[in-house]
């Protein structure tokens, strides 16, 4: 009879060694992190400009006065995000499918999809927002069709759908050919094979990559401020001028982080889960 049989709760030598190792590394990590934070807290206020920076960026009075207004303005960011995201998903999916179309009669769609993704992935987002956001209303369209909300959002949709399309296309490419062989061998059409067999697996595979785009989109909504909508970034600018103080920008940054950090964590979580499943 071995020791383990007598007392199953007793950890083995390897487990004891690893537990000691873990305790040791947690202790080292804790100490070094505290030292770094302490250094920052002590050293930064010693900088010659610290008092000025503190007054203009970390002014509690300005912060508490402007924060509710910033939160209000952020609702507009969320609204823009909320109507853009589903349209991006639909357009991205459509473009991704168009790029793999084989039928000669539909070749124009394929050509369009290829040019589309090349163009919109090749341009800075802000440039597209300027061109679409100022250009199209400049045609002299009647209300409400001259709204910067519509055309600014369209610019975001165009750019992000191009990225989403590429992500989805890579997902389609990642599905082994034996899956479509199996579907076709049963007499399913090409379209049904794509819709019921390839796409569901492809979309699931690229969910984490698309989550990263969702986070990026949430941030890039702030770029619309350049063509008109008074969303949080623009509102922070208004407050900055009003109080001659930069603290509203810090407030806006905190609000963005409150949304984007949980989303980023969630995307990482999905990515890890995916990786574990593939093992």
């Amino acid at each position, binding site marked *: 009879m071995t020791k383990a049989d007598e007392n199953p709760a007793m950890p083995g030598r390897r487990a004891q060694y690893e537990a000691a190792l873990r305790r040791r590394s947690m202790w080292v990590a804790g100490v070094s992190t505290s030292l770094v934070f302490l250094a920052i807290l002590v050293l930064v206020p010693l900088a010659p400009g610290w008092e000025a920076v503190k007054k203009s960026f970390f002014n509690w009075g300005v912060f508490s006065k402007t924060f509710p207004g910033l939160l209000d303005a952020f609702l507009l960011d969320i609204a823009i995000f909320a109507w853009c995201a589903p349209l991006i998903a639909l357009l991205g999916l459509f473009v991704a499918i168009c790029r793999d179309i084989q039928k000669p009669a539909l070749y124009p769609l394929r050509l369009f999809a290829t040019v589309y993704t090349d163009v919109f992935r090749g341009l800075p987002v802000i440039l597209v927002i300027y061109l679409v956001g100022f250009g199209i209303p400049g045609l002299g369209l009647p209300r409400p069709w001259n709204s910067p909300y519509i055309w600014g959002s369209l610019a975001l949709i165009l750019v992000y759908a191009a990225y989403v399309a590429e992500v989805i296309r890579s997902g389609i490419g990642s599905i082994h050919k*034996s*899956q479509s*062989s*199996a*579907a*076709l*061998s*049963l*007499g*399913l*059409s090409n379209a*049904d094979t794509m819709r*019921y*067999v390839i796409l*569901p*697996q492809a979309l*699931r595979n690229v969910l984490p990559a698309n989550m990263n785009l969702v986070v990026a989109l949430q941030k890039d909504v702030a770029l619309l401020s350049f063509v008109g909508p008074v969303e949080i970034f623009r509102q922070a600018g208004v407050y900055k001028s009003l109080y001659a103080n930069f603290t509203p920008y810090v407030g806006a940054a905190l609000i963005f982080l409150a949304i984007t950090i949980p989303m980023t964590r969630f995307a990482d979580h999905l990515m890890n889960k995916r990786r574990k499943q593939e093992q």
Partner: protein
Amino acid sequence: MLSLRNIQKSFGDHHVLRGIDLEVAKGEMVCLIGASGSGKSTLLRAVNLLDPVDDGEIWFDGVDIAEPGLDPQPIRQRIGLVFQSFNLFPHMSAAENVMLAPRRVKGLSRAAQRGRVEELFDRFGLGHRIDHYPDQLSGGQQQRVAIIRALAMQPDILLFDEITSALDPELVAEVLDVLRSLRAEGMTMILATHEMGFARELADKVCFLESGRILEEGTPAQIFDAPREERTRQFLSQVL
């Protein structure tokens, strides 16, 4: 029922099928044997029209289905193919795997199919696994689901591409039992196989393939006990 004439197929410079002639009568079971790379799988995929042939004729029920430009979809519905690596759809339950093609191709609703599908699962000893996902099933169970999936389209002929080669030895028997049961029922079948014992026991005809040709064909007794060709003898001495 199925008649192949001078089937030719190349992949690039690689001439895989070099003039195959083969007759399969209704209710017959034909086994294709031969070394890896001899063209067995390519031949089956050609008959299912997954890899169209370069030249030759495939007469199926009075129609030459090797005709270039022919719509393969209605033909594939009548010629089932079961793969070595199962190729179940991992995002669907076993029952959904089976019901997808009849639903989309024949317009049979899930409710209309469920009873018959449950019968099939019961018959092959998988009644308790019907709503499991592929990754919850053993290899032998997955392959039986794949066979049920092909059967659910009620094909006239079933092709089996080395369907036990990816299985652990102890799981081979449960899959061969399914074939035995289909044989008893009179299903027309072509098998590419390395299961010589099984081929000898049940085949009507055994074909030995070598470098894309049928070098020798005959009853199991002829091929296994009295092969005429030296190459056949060599191959059999290696695998038996």
